[in-house]
C-alpha cells in the first residue's frame, strides 16, 4: 500500500519546483515558457495516473515524514478517491489553462510571472487536496489565498484588479483565520492533527461540547473560500483577473476548496441538525441569490461569476443534506460543473479577446462570425442549463431528486420549490448567455471585428465540451471516479449507478418546469431588467469598503493611543504596568516573615543618607538648571560610594567614585553643546501623572529592596569564598569572581564596553559629516569666563600629578587580586589621569603626545583577555581556567604570578581605551566646533608677553 508514497511526495513538490522554470524560460520565448510550465504539470499528472488504478480499487496511498512532531505537524500526504478526483481536476485543467493562456496573454503581459504564479497556486491547491495533516492543509490553504491574490492582481495597472485582489485576500484570509481556530479545536478533540485519525473520531467530535464552535469556524473558512452568501461578493470582483485565472481558480479549483473541505470533513461534521440547517440553508440561499443576480449581469464574466456562486451554493446544499445519495450527486456535479464552467469562461475570454468587449448589451449575432466558439459556448451553456444529453442535466436531476424529499423545518415544500426556482433562473441565464451573445442579427458596431481564434485557443474549451457530451451521453464512464470519490466522502462503500433516464419522477417535472419557466423568463428579460435596475439593493462592495475603512480607522485610533510618537508616554505606560504587575504579584502571594534584624545606624551615616535624599530631591526639583543638576548628581554618586565603603564593599566604592568622575566629565562636555536650561513645558496634569507613577515605582522598589534585605536567601557565594584562595589564587574574592569564577561574564562585559566606545566614535564621525556639522560650525558655543583657559597652575600641577596617578593606577592594578582594586578601577584611574592632561593642557597638546590609538587599546585589551582564556586550552582546561604560581626574586619579596592578572590586564586596557575613546570623541566635536587650538602648553605664555612688551 505504501508503494506510491514517494510518488505522492513528488506530485506535491512538482509544481513548486516547476514554478522556478517559467520565470527563467521566458527568456527563451513565450512558447518555450508555456511548455516549461506544462512539464511539471504533465509529470505530476503522469504520476497521479500511475497511482490512480490502485485508488480506484479503493486503496489509500499514504506518505509521511515528520516535520515538527512537537506541534503535531508532519509532512504527510494521502490519496483517496476524493483526493484523486480533485488532484486530476487541478492538474488536468491546469494543463488546459496553460495552453489557453499561451494564446490569451498579450505580448505586453509578463508571461513568466503569470506561469510562476499559476504553478505556485497549482502546488498550493494540490497540497490542500492530498494533505493528511490538517495543519499542513492550513498552510496550503493560506498559500492558495496568497497565490490567488497575486493572480487576481496580475494586471497591476488596473485598479479593479488590485482592489479585487485585496478584497479576495481580506475575505478568504479572514475565513482562513477562523478555520485555523476550528481545525485546532478539531485536532484537540481528536487528539491528533492527522486527517485519517480525525476522520475516525467522528462520534467523539460530534458529541463534544466544542463541536458547534469548531463547526462554525471551519464553515466560515469554507464559506468564504467557496463564496457562499453572505461572503459571495468577493468572487465577482475577482473577475478583474485575466480570464485563464477566472477559469482556473474561480470556477474549477480554488472556489471548490471550500466544497472540498466540507466533503473531506463530511464523515466527521455532517449528520447533525446544526450541519443541515447551517450548510443546506446557506447553500440554498446562495444558489437562488447567485442565479438571480447572474440573470441581470451584463458583463459576461460577472454573469458566469454569479452563476458559479449559484452552483457552489448547489454543491454546498447537497453536502448539507447529509445523505449518501446527495453526496454522490455533489461529487458528480463537481465534475460536471468543472467541465462546462471552465469551457464557458474560456469562451467568454475568447469573445472578449476577439471583440474587445464583454458587455452582453454590445454583443449578439456572433454565431456567423465565430461558429466554432458558438458551438463550444452553446454546448457548455446548455449543459449549465441542465438540458438532457449534456452532463449538467444528470447531476441537476440528482440534485432535484434529493431536494424533492427534503424537509426544511418540517416543511416539505420549501427546499423543492426553492431548488426549482434556482434551476429555473439557471436555465434563464444560460439561455441568455447563448441568445444575447451568439444569436440575433449580426451587428456592425463591435469594438473590434471578431473571428474565430487560433486552434490553440479553442482547443482547451473544445476538449472540455467533448467531455460534457461524452459524460452526458454515457454517464457510466464517469462511474469509476464518482464511486471512488463518493465512497471517500461518505466513508461508506457506495455503488451508485449514473443513468440518463430515471423514469417519470418529481425531479423530471421540476426540470420541465425549470426549462419552460426559464425560457419564459428570458423572453421577459427586457422589462424585468428595467425593474431590476430601478430596484434598490445593497451594494456589497460599498459595504465592504465602509467596513474596511471603519476597521482601519479603529486600528489607527488604537495605535495612536499607544504609539503616538511620544516616548514619555510609552515609558509611562511601561512603568505603570510594571508597578501594577509588581503589585499583583505581591497581592497574590504575600511575604514570608523576616529572618534578619536591622543593623544599627551611626549618626554620620544618617547625615550621608540625608545628603543623598536631599540631593536626589533637588535634582528633580532643579533639573531645569542643567549644570546645577550635574553638581547634585555628583553629590549623589559620592554619597553612594561612601555608602559602599561603609557597607563592606571597598571595590564598589573605588569603582563608583572613579566612574562618577568620568560620568560628570562626560555630561559636562556634552552639555557644552546643549541648551543649558530645560524649558518648563509640562502641564501640571502631566507632572501630576508622572509624580504618581514615579512615587508608585519608588515606593514599590524601595519596599521590595527592604523585603529583600530583611530575609536570608540561599546563596552560592560560600563556594566562592571557600575557593577563592585555593582555586583562584587571590584573597580579594570580588576580584577573583570577576577574573576567574565568572571570567566569561567579565569577558563579555568588556566587549560590550569596547563596542560602546566604538559606537560613540562612529556616531561622532557620522555627526561631523551630517547637517549637524554645519550647525556646529555656525553656532558659537563658547562661554569663556576667563581669558586664560589653560591656567599655569593647573598645567603644572597635572604634569606633576601624572606620574603619581599612573603609579597609583599601577598599584591598584597589581594589588587587585588580593586587595581592593583590579583592572576595572585601575583603568578608570589611569583614564582620569589622562583626562586631567586633556583638561589642563588642551586637546591638541595632549593629542599630539598620544602614542597609541584608543581603538587599538580596546582591541588589544579584548585580544589579551581572549588569548588568556584560550591559553588555558593548551593545558587541556576549559576556557578561562586560571593558573598561578609563586615566584621569588631576590631583591623583592615573594610574589604571585597568575594568568588571571593577564586577563585583568585585558580588562584594564579595554576600560581605559573605551573611556578615553568616549571622551575623546566628545572633545573632537568641541574642536570641530571651533574651540581654539593651542599647540603650546598654555594659552597664556608669560615669556611671550614679556617679549611683546619689550618690543613696544
Amino acid at each position, binding site marked *: 500500500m505504501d508503494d506510491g508514497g514517494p510518488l505522492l511526495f513528488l506530485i506535491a513538490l512538482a509544481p513548486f519546483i516547476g514554478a522556478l522554470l517559467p520565470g527563467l524560460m521566458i527568456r527563451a520565448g513565450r512558447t518555450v515558457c508555456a511548455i516549461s510550465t506544462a512539464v511539471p504539470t504533465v509529470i505530476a499528472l503522469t504520476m497521479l495516473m500511475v497511482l490512480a488504478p490502485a485508488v480506484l480499487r479503493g486503496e489509500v496511498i499514504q506518505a509521511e515524514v515528520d516535520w515538527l512532531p512537537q506541534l503535531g505537524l508532519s509532512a504527510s500526504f494521502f490519496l483517496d478517491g476524493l483526493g484523486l478526483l480533485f488532484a486530476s481536476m487541478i492538474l488536468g485543467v491546469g494543463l488546459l489553462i496553460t495552453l489557453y493562456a499561451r494564446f490569451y496573454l498579450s505580448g505586453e503581459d509578463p508571461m513568466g510571472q503569470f506561469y510562476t504564479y499559476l504553478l505556485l497556486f497549482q502546488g498550493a491547491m494540490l497540497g490542500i487536496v492530498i494533505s493528511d495533516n490538517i495543519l499542513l492543509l492550513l498552510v496550503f490553504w493560506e498559500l492558495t489565498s496568497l497565490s490567488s491574490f497575486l493572480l487576481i492582481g496580475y494586471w497591476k495597472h488596473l485598479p479593479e484588479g488590485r482592489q479585487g485582489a485585496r478584497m479576495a485576500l481580506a475575505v478568504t484570509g479572514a475565513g482562513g483565520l477562523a478555520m485555523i481556530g476550528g481545525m485546532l479545536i478539531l485536532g484537540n478533540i481528536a487528539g491528533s492533527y492527522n486527517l485519517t485519525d480525525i476522520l475516525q473520531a467522528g462520534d467523539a467530535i460530534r458529541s463534544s461540547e466544542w463541536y458547534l464552535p469548531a463547526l462554525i469556524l471551519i464553515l466560515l473558512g469554507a464559506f468564504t473560500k467557496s463564496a457562499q452568501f453572505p461572503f459571495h461578493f468577493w468572487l465577482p470582483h475577482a473577475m478583474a483577473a485575466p480570464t485563464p485565472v477566472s477559469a482556473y481558480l474561480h470556477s474549477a479549483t480554488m472556489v471548490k476548496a471550500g466544497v472540498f473541505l466540507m466533503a473531506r470533513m463530511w464523515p466527521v461534521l455532517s449528520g447533525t441538525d446544526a450541519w443541515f440547517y447551517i450548510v443546506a440553508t446557506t447553500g440554498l440561499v446562495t444558489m437562488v441569490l447567485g442565479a438571480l443576480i447572474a440573470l441581470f449581469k451584463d458583463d459576461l464574466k460577472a454573469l458566469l461569476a454569479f452563476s458559479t456562486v449559484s452552483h457552489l451554493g448547489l454543491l454546498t446544499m447537497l453536502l448539507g443534506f447529509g445523505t449518501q445519495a446527495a453526496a454522490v450527486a455533489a461529487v458528480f456535479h463537481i465534475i460536471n460543473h468543472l467541465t462546462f464552467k471552465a469551457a464557458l469562461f474560456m469562451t467568454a475570454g475568447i469573445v472578449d479577446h476577439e471583440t474587445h468587449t464583454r458587455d452582453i448589451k454590445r454583443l449578439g449575432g456572433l454565431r456567423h462570425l465565430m461558429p466554432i466558439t458558438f458551438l463550444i459556448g452553446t454546448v457548455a451553456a446548455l449543459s449549465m442549463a441542465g438540458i438532457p444529453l449534456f452532463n449538467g442535466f444528470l447531476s441537476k436531476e440528482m440534485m432535484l431528486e434529493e431536494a424533492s424529499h427534503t424537509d426544511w423545518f418540517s416543511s416539505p415544500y420549501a427546499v423543492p420549490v426553492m431548488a426549482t426556482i434556482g434551476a429555473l433562473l439557471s436555465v434563464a441565464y444560460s439561455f441568455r448567455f447563448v441568445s444575447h451573445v451568439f444569436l440575433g442579427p449580426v451587428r456592425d458596431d463591435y469594438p473590434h471585428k471578431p473571428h474565430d481564434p487560433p486552434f490553440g485557443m479553442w482547443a482547451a474549451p473544445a476538449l472540455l465540451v467533448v467531455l460534457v457530451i461524452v459524460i452526458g451521453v454515457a454517464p457510466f464512464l464517469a462511474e469509476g471516479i464518482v464511486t471512488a470519490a463518493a465512497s471517500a466522502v461518505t466513508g461508506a462503500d457506495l455503488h451508485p449507478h449514473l443513468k440518463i433516464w430515471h423514469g417519470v419522477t418529481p425531479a423530471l417535472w421540476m426540470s420541465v418546469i425549470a426549462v419552460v419557466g426559464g425560457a419564459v423568463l428570458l423572453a421577459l428579460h427586457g422589462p424585468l431588467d428595467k425593474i431590476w435596475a430601478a430596484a434598490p439593493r445593497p451594494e456589497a462592495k460599498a459595504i465592504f469598503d465602509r467596513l474596511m475603512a471603519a476597521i482601519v480607522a479603529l486600528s489607527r485610533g488604537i495605535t495612536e493611543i499607544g504609539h503616538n510618537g511620544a516616548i514619555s508616554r510609552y515609558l509611562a505606560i511601561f512603568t505603570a504596568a510594571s508597578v501594577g504587575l509588581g503589585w499583583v504579584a505581591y497581592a497574590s502571594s504575600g511575604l514570608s516573615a523576616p529572618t534578619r534584624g536591622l543593623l544599627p545606624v551611626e549618626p554620620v551615616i544618617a547625615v550621608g543618607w540625608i545628603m543623598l535624599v536631599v540631593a536626589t530631591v533637588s535634582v528633580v526639583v532643579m533639573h531645569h538648571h542643567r549644570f546645577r543638576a550635574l553638581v547634585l548628581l555628583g553629590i549623589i554618586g559620592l554619597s553612594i560610594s561612601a555608602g559602599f565603603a561603609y557597607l563592606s564593599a571597598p571595590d564598589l566604592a573605588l569603582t563608583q567614585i572613579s566612574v562618577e568622575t568620568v560620568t560628570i566629565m*562626560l555630561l559636562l562636555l556634552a552639555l557644552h553643546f546643549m541648551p543649558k536650561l530645560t524649558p518648563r513645558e509640562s502641564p501640571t496634569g502631566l507632572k501630576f501623572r508622572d509624580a504618581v507613577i514615579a512615587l508608585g515605582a519608588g515606593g514599590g522598589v524601595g519596599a521590595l529592596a527592604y523585603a529583600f534585605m530583611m530575609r536570608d536567601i540561599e546563596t552560592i557565594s560560600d563556594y566562592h569564598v571557600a575557593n577563592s584562595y585555593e582555586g583562584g589564587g587571590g584573597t580579594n574574592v570580588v576580584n577573583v569572581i570577576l577574573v576567574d569564577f565568572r571570567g566569561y561574564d567579565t569577558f563579555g562585559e568588556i566587549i560590550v564596553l569596547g563596542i560602546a566606545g566604538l559606537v560613540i566614535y562612529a556616531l561622532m564621525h557620522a555627526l561631523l559629516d551630517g547637517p549637524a556639522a554645519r550647525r556646529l560650525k555656525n553656532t558659537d558655543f563658547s562661554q569663556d569666563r576667563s581669558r586664560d583657559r589653560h591656567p599655569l597652575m593647573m598645567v603644572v600641577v597635572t604634569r606633576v600629578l601624572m606620574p603619581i596617578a599612573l603609579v597609583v593606577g599601577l598599584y591598584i592594578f597589581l594589588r587587585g587580586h588580593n586587595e581592593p582594586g583590579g583592572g576595572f578601577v585601575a583603568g578608570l584611574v589611569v583614564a582620569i589621569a589622562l583626562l586631567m592632561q586633556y583638561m589642563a593642557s588642551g586637546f591638541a597638546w595632549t593629542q599630539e603626545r598620544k602614542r597609541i590609538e584608543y581603538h587599538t587599546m580596546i582591541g588589544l585589551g579584548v585580544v589579551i583577555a581572549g588569548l588568556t582564556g584560550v591559553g588555558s586550552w593548551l593545558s587541556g582546561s576549559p576556557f578561562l581556567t586560571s593558573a598561578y604560581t609563586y615566584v621569588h626574586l631576590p631583591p623583592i619579596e615573594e610574589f604571585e604570578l597568575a594568568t588571571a592578572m593577564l586577563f585583568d590586564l585585558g580588562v584594564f586596557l579595554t576600560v581605559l581605551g573605551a573611556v578615553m575613546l568616549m571622551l575623546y570623541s566628545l572633545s573632537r566635536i568641541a574642536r570641530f566646533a571651533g574651540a581654539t587650538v593651542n599647540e603650546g602648553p598654555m594659552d597664556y605664555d608669560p615669556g611671550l608677553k614679556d617679549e611683546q612688551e619689550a618690543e613696544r
Partner: protein
Amino acid sequence: MEILVASSIGVLTAGGVYLLLRLRTFPVILGLALLSYAVNVFLFASGGLAIDQSPILSKYGDATYTDPLPQALVLTAIVISFGMTAVLVMIGLGAYLEADSDRIDIAAQDIEDTDDTDQTEPEGRA
C-alpha cells in the same frame, strides 16, 4: 540601616522615573543615571547588608565575610551603565545637533511635515 538603604533606593527610583518621563533628552539622561544608581544599590543590597566584613580573605581563619557575588555583579554593572550613559549622551547630542531640538517625542505635526517634504521634494528639485 536597612531602612535607610531601602528608602534611598526608593527615592532614587522615584526621582529617576520622574525625570525619565520628561520631554527633553537631558533630564531623561539624568533620570537614567539616577535609575542606574538605584538599580546598582538594589542589586548590591540583595546580598544583605554587613559592616566591616569586606570580602577580602583574612589570614586569621575566624573572620566572616559579606556576600561577594552581588558586589562583583554590581562592579561590572557600574562600568557598563557608564558605557550606556555615554552612548545615550552621544545619541542625544547628535539628535539635538541634527534636529536643533532635544525633544524626545515626535509631535503629530512633525510626522505630517515629514510626509509633505517627501512628496514635494521631487518637485522642488525640478
